[in-house]
């Protein structure tokens, strides 16, 4: 599958669906979950940026600041970022590990 189809940002009538990996709003009813989620997503995106895995859209989102409306979706990642992070995101969520510990091994492939 080519990159534009994988990232779901293609032509009218095709691939309109954005792959969504995370949303700050999902944590709003979990105590101080929103604050934790904003901090976690900010740290993750800074790390992704440092690793060259954020697309221009992702960089602009990070620069604008993560807030309660923020999400992490496929267009915010480079193809490689989507391959590494997108594919394994829910595994990471369930793992209980820090993102660097979890994702770094996948970067070595």
């Amino acid at each position, binding site marked *: 599958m080519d990159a534009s189809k994988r*990232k*779901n*940002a*293609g032509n*009218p*009538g095709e691939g*309109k*669906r*954005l792959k*969504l990996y*995370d*949303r700050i*709003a*999902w*944590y*709003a*009813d*979990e*105590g101080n*979950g929103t604050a*934790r*989620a904003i*901090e*976690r997503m900010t*740290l*993750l995106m800074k*790390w992704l940026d*440092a690793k060259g895995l954020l697309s221009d*859209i992702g960089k602009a989102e990070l620069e*604008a600041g993560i*807030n*309660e*409306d*923020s*999400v992490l*979706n496929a*267009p915010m990642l480079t193809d490689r970022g989507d391959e590494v992070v997108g594919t394994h995101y*829910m*595994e*990471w*969520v*369930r*793992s*209980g*590990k*820090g*993102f*660097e*510990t*979890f994702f*770094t*091994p*996948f970067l*070595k492939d």
Partner: protein
Amino acid sequence: MNILDAIGMVRANLRHWKAAESVENQAHPRYPAGSSHGGEFMSKGGGGIASEISKAERGRFRVGDRANAEKGAVREEKIRAKLAEKYPEPPHEIHSQVYLIDERGKRLLDPKTGKARRVDFVVALGKKAIKSVEVTSKTADKSSQMARERRLRQENTKVYGLIRGGKAKIWMPASAKTQVIRVRASD
């Protein structure tokens, strides 16, 4: 601080460090437990061990957050499926994660908070939105997002939505004001 207090603090820090380390050393799906990998990002900044542990902990999901992530993803899928059933494609199009923008494609910023507004789902017919939806749990407070959208609409006569990964826009008339839909993940 007396010597006993100081010893107590050191012991507490050691327990905290060991607990964090034991979680980190659980087997990775790609690497056996105890293997050496990563570390360079968390080591930046020279904050010392306490700072590294703190950053590593912030970077992981707590049990409650994990459940919320999974429930959130389920809710999102449920509403998308319901919208697709009610508004079949074609002629409708269902767009997700739609930023509110102006005619030139610039993100609209709330005059009060300076924040942009992103809507979960927008159903479009041609180049016009006919429905706008915010999906959430039964209990989450969405008043600040709704107030932000209200202020953005008051400040701007014509509001558009950015779609297809930023490649196109649709008109978001006042009649397509966002509706909050509350869903239980288990419904």
